[in-house]
């Protein structure tokens, strides 16, 4: 059995190590290109980002009032995507800014950007949504966290490269 009195010193040292690791982790997060902005939830950027599921995105798709933005790489976008979506890669930021500038006409209209990437494991949609809000292009930006995989799993229309060739 572990003697609790003997445990005291290692436990104290462990607490110091954990505290040091937390400081290092938060510092690394600040320097990370895709790190979290550890700000309160009241931050206006966060209030403007709205997470919706594929079914809600489909309603916006059917209404035609939303512009779908695919944040995956151009090659992935060419292979498949939501019909009518624009491709604005979520990273690097310079590519995102160039693509936003190239499509600035669309953002000047009263449209709701619905941003998506491949699925739960990607975060480029989050990066682009933050960028769009910080640029002040829209009142709200919608993210589909489930991405194209959730959209496809629900049987909603997906543009495929092969289909285009046969058409």
């Amino acid at each position, binding site marked *: 059995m*572990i003697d609790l009195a003997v*445990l005291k*010193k*290692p*436990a104290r*040292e*462990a607490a*110091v*190590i*954990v505290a*040091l*690791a*937390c400081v*290092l*982790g*938060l510092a*690394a*997060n600040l320097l*990370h290109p*895709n*790190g*979290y902005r*550890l700000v309160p*939830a009241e931050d206006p950027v966060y209030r403007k980002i709205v997470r919706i599921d594929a079914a809600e995105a489909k309603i916006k798709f059917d209404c035609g009032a939303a512009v779908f933005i695919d944040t995956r790489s151009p090659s992935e976008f060419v292979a498949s995507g939501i019909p009518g979506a624009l491709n604005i890669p979520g990273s690097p930021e310079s590519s995102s800014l160039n693509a936003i500038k190239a499509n600035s006409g669309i953002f000047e209209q009263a449209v709701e950007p619905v941003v998506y990437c491949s699925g*739960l*494991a*990607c*975060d480029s949609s*989050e990066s682009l949504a933050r960028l769009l809000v910080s640029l002040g292009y829209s009142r709200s930006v919608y993210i589909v966290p489930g991405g194209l995989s959730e959209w496809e799993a629900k049987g909603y229309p997906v543009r495929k490269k092969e289909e285009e060739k046969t058409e």
Partner: protein
Amino acid sequence: MDFIKNTLRGVAYGNGVTAFLRVAIGLLFMWSGGAKMIDPAGFAKIIGFYGILPERLLPYAAATLPSIELLAGALLSAGYRIKPAALITASLLVIFIAAITLNLARGERFDCGCFDLARFGISETIGPGVIARDAALLAVTLVLYRAKKHVASIEAIAERIRLREL
């Protein structure tokens, strides 16, 4: 039978096998922490799957947990502050086992996000296998905690220097 007993006694006291296990577990935790640090958003999503922490704490957990794993792993493999590092890894493993067991009981099935081994084709979907593996790692970390001697470690080198200077 005596051979097995003596071997286990040797490992529990601290020999080359103990050192190997210490370095291996240290490297495993370093790998795990490093992989999670590269993709904090992906790791936050995995923590979210467990449904234990409130959503607003997920970014903080995703930013700090990997660095704890990384630092504890580095200390273990280098053989410095072995006892506290073993205590941290053991605590992390207890938390992992509890979280996985809870979600298994809820009927959930997802990648546990433990050691990022999926990229090597090793399934880490939560289940009895993952719990057994973490329990085995926990047993090893407890052996490391209780071991009296740590060969091939900074602590052993420092002790040798200290004794020479006496």
